[in-house]
């Protein structure tokens, strides 16, 4: 693993404007990913993880606005780029595996045609013949029979469609792939084989990845580094093993304690009281304070600082878990 950062996100803040007011979906989030590294973003629905993915690709709905921050991809800030410029970077440098694989393909064209189209738009130098060879190779790589190239989406099962989506994401040799809940709708056995496929490919192609999932267990297995999101803010960021062994933020700790496992001793599950906040009116200070067992006086007044705890372990908390 080299030390070069493929992508660097600095102080990213994004809001949606709605009829009822502005929703602060991503608030001052920073992280960077090295070549070949996999970052897992974990959190519950509405925590801003998908909004980050959409911001990185700049595939934002009309009512979303990046208020501040930089997204530096291969040394170039993407935030100020107009859409035509951005299109050149999308797919060839940064691509995405979508959550709803069912809807990723147009039902009236073959899957191959749709991927060829993507290649032709983003890599104009590649001939159609070469593109076809490339797709067949990609299909083999993701574990699909090359004949499937000429089939229509409805002839694919859910798992096969997800594989095709991965092939499409790989089609323009990106440096980084964002996988937003790539296996959420799939059964465990299919999920297992697809996750294996992605991690193997990632190693082989020395790609960087961003995994986005609500599933702590999936993130634990596929990521090198984990960022925990809560209510639009990143609360903790560390290497995977480090964060699972030594969670510092009470939310991270609670998330892990509430996640059941099939192996190991059957420990008591801990339930977190309350609900995630309404991001139209996020709580003052630390956004987790209304549910936090560790809260102290200043938690509802001041936003906690993003502090370095050594070993590349960062956390934003006024009263962290005891570190032992």
């Amino acid at each position, binding site marked *: 693993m080299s030390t070069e950062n493929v992508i660097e996100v600095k102080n990213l803040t994004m809001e949606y404007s709605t009829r009822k007011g502005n929703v602060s979906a991503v608030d001052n989030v920073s992280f960077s990913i090295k070549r070949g590294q996999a970052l897992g973003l974990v959190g519950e629905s509405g925590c801003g993880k998908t909004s980050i993915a959409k911001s990185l690709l700049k595939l934002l709905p009309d009512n979303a606005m990046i208020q501040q921050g930089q997204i530096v991809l291969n040394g170039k800030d993407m935030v100020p780029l107009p859409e035509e410029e951005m299109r050149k970077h999308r797919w060839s440098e940064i691509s995405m595996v979508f959550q709803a694989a069912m809807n990723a393909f147009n039902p009236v064209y073959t899957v191959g045609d749709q991927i060829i189209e993507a290649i032709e738009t983003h890599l104009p130098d590649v001939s159609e013949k070469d593109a076809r060879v490339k797709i067949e190779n990609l299909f083999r790589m993701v574990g699909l029979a090359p004949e499937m190239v000429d089939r229509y989406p409805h002839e694919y099962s859910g798992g096969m469609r997800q594989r095709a989506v991965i092939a499409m994401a790989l089609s323009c040799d990106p440096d980084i792939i964002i996988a937003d809940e790539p296996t959420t709708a799939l059964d465990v*056995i299919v*999920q297992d084989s697809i996750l294996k496929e992605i991690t193997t490919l990632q190693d082989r192609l020395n790609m960087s990845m961003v995994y986005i999932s609500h599933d702590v267990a999936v993130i*634990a297995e596929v990521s090198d580094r984990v960022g925990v999101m809560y209510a639009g803010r990143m609360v903790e960021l560390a290497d995977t093993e480090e964060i*699972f062994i030594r969670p510092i933020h009470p939310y991270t700790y609670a998330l892990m304690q*509430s996640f*059941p496992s*099939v192996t190991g001793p059957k420990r008591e*599950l*801990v339930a977190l009281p309350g609900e995630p906040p309404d991001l139209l009116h996020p709580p003052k200070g630390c956004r987790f304070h209304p549910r936090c067992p560790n809260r102290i006086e200043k938690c509802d007044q001041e936003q906690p600082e993003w502090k370095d705890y050594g070993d590349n372990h960062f956390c934003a908390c006024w009263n962290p878990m005891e570190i032992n």
Partner: protein
Amino acid sequence: MSNQPLIKVEGLRKLYPIDGGVFRKPSSFNHAVDGLNFEIGHGESLGLVGESGCGKSTTGKMLVKLFEPSDGSVKLQVGDSYINVSNIDRNSRKDFRRNVQMIFQDPYESMNPRMTIFDIVGEPLAVQDIGTISEREERVAEFLEMVGLTPASSFMFRYPHELSGGQRQRVAIARALVIEPAFVVADEPTSMLDVSIRTGVMKLMQDLAERLNVTYLYITHDLAVARYMCDRIAVMYLGKIVEIGPTEELLSNPRHPYTKALLSAVPIPDPRIKRDAVQIEGGISKAIDPQPQCRFYARCPIRDEHCKTHDHPPLEVKGNGMQVACYKVPVE
């Protein structure tokens, strides 16, 4: 309470015709549920686990009489005798509806958006003509408090869209329990909830089962959740139960090759533990006019000629209370 089981399922089948039209007889059938036999004791919680399309939801819906079985029977103990669910008269129907309820997966779609929480939770009381409107109001309030929606008065006259997913699922639990049924089918009740909310709902279901002496059939695809919710687990594959037994025994010492594969595919929320490689390949299909051989034959890593030429194996006790449907698993 008696030692006899609350629910007895015998030879339960559900076949869906394929290719049938108004004028043509269907030529083939999808064997969605194919010959299930199991019992659930009073106060017990049985988990029905399997991948999508294995027939677990269809089974659940036959148990609450949303679907009629093609064959076989479901018997429910009421008083000292059993009523046959698929063949009941007016009086038993009343008993049945008072004793059997269901919790649905989707907290958003399982509530009429134009009804208030009071009307939703009070629906079983209203349609079964239990109590006056003010008695129902009191009872609904009591159950809302019981599921943790306090104060009840601040929830009664709101609409489901004003509540969060976790709150709605609590409402769904209150609706299922408000007539104090003996048996509840819970179809993936927590799979759409966020982790931090899910644990609370799981604990609530367990507490209430104890308090109100409820027996659950807990349908889930998630073995880790089943571990916390169920006393026994039945693993389904293509309409058949392949293994059934006490939860911890099944999880720590699975015997059927499919159970093994399913277990080894579950990700573990601890990066220090590496799990075994999954031994099976291919995907789940449908049991359309199945061959007279083991349903798992095509994907089985330990199959042999015997499995190919003989009918699907029956469930047999293999040791430690485990029943397994496999010719290759030895009796201990």
